[in-house]
């Protein structure tokens, strides 16, 4: 491997100092022209003062914001509730009869969902429930603005979880040449 040409010793130190100084000046004095002398770090910095200004609209891929539920796909298999490390998913259901698939067939036994709650005051956003769901009923949504003043209000019921489903983005496209079956969000 070719070694870099010898420069005067400690050159890197000065390059580093210069770099931080440049960023400092850019942040401190971002304005051009006559206003250059006025320090305006709120304009110069990359920081967005979030609650006062909304962040730029950028698609946040794979963001773990909130877990969305598609109730129609849920079979009350309880896999998510059992795999949840801190037991924040509450599911209740009952057996019921559904009409036969083909005319003249036998009535089917299905599970009906009575209750599906996720307690976000307990949830640690590990995403195991989303991974483990075999019926495409749970999805990650990038929404994050659901803080509450009361702890109990962080318990999202089925209706609320179904609302979050509207915000679920499409899955990221696979890499070129991938032979895996392409999954789609069941709209």
């Amino acid at each position, binding site marked *: 491997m070719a070694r870099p040409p010898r420069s005067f010793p400690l050159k890197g130190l000065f390059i580093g100092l210069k770099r931080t100084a440049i*960023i400092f000046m850019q*942040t401190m004095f971002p304005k051009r022209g006559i206003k250059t002398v006025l320090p305006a770090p709120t304009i110069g910095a990359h*920081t967005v003062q979030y609650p006062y200004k909304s962040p730029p609209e950028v698609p946040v891929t794979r963001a773990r914001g909130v877990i969305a539920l598609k109730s129609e796909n849920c079979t009350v298999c309880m896999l998510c509730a059992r795999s949840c490390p801190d037991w924040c998913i509450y599911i209740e259901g009952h057996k019921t009869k559904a009409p036969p698939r083909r005319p003249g067939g036998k009535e089917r036994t299905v599970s009906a969902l009575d209750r599906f709650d996720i307690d976000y005051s307990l949830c640690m956003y590990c995403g195991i429930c989303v991974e483990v769901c075999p019926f495409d009923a749970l999805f990650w949504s990038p929404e994050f603005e659901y803080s509450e003043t009361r702890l109990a209000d962080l318990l999202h019921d089925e209706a609320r979880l179904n609302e979050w489903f509207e915000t679920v983005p499409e899955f990221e496209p696979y890499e070129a040449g991938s032979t895996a079956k392409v999954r789609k969000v069941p709209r």
Partner: protein
Amino acid sequence: MISSVLAIDWSNYWQQSIFRVLGAAIFVILGAGTFVIAFLFKMMSYMQSRLGPMEAGPHGTLQLLAEVGKWLQKEDLIPSRADRTLFKLAPYIVMASTFLVVVVMPFGPDAYFINVDTGIYLALALASLSVIGIIVAGWASASKYSLLGALRAAGQLIAYELPMVLAVVGVVIQAGTLNLQGIVAAQHQGEIFGWGGIGNPFILTQLVGFVVFLIATQAELAQPPFDMPVAESELVTGYMTEYSGMRFLLFFIAEFASAAVFAALAATLFLGGWAIPGVDLDDNVMNVVGPLVLFVKMMLVGALIFWARFTFPRFREDQLQAFAWKALIPLALVNILATMVLKVAF
């Protein structure tokens, strides 16, 4: 300001003592607070294109008060196997060494706490006391992280004490005195090849000494790139690991107060202290203006120290020691030799 109060013959030991303690406390707290807000909160953020704290007060200027309030509320934890007496004592030793250095600092012709002939010697001796507090903290915590951090700190502080002292020796030789007032006067009345327009700040002749002093200061403060003792990825926070609440706050204040004190010391030794270059004012005026001038110079030196702090990554332990013993100390010795020769020659 200070002088007018000092000039009164208090003839009362306790009144003067209380006044001096208050003065030193104001310097330490103001210095540490300004350094934290101006450099740690704001300069660091801007260097990383961030804003830093913005909520408490205009542009987050009162953030430090909020932080102090938070720390004071925290539980004062002491590990069960810790040596309780030493554990409680350690932050105060570190704090005391910082306070004591302020005592010899000159702020104006008459604005000083004490004026001893061996001022800079006393300052450096007192500054090196803090290592005892750090070792005590590490040992008393009964934690391996703390002990390792304290041992690293001891090795580093002793290694960098030497180049710091040697860098100062150059100044002392040139000024011909150990007295800090004398060093300030020597710079103010000095001449550059017969031209006395701005005096002779020793940074011009002792640039090598200044650089060595700043690097050694950086190491003495155990801040990046010399923060092996508190290397958070290996040792949590080194000797401060087991400390919380008020006692951690004391360590924190001591760290930044000693940054301020060392910056003021560097300003006194190399930038002319409280004197305005080329301006001769009445002593009574200088007693008021002097502290402000020293403050401005202190901020300049502080900006240099913290600029390096926020730029460079950490040294490895062996690099750190090699840098002190193989680079800084020979450099400082050569500087002393050159100063000696030139002092005799001119």
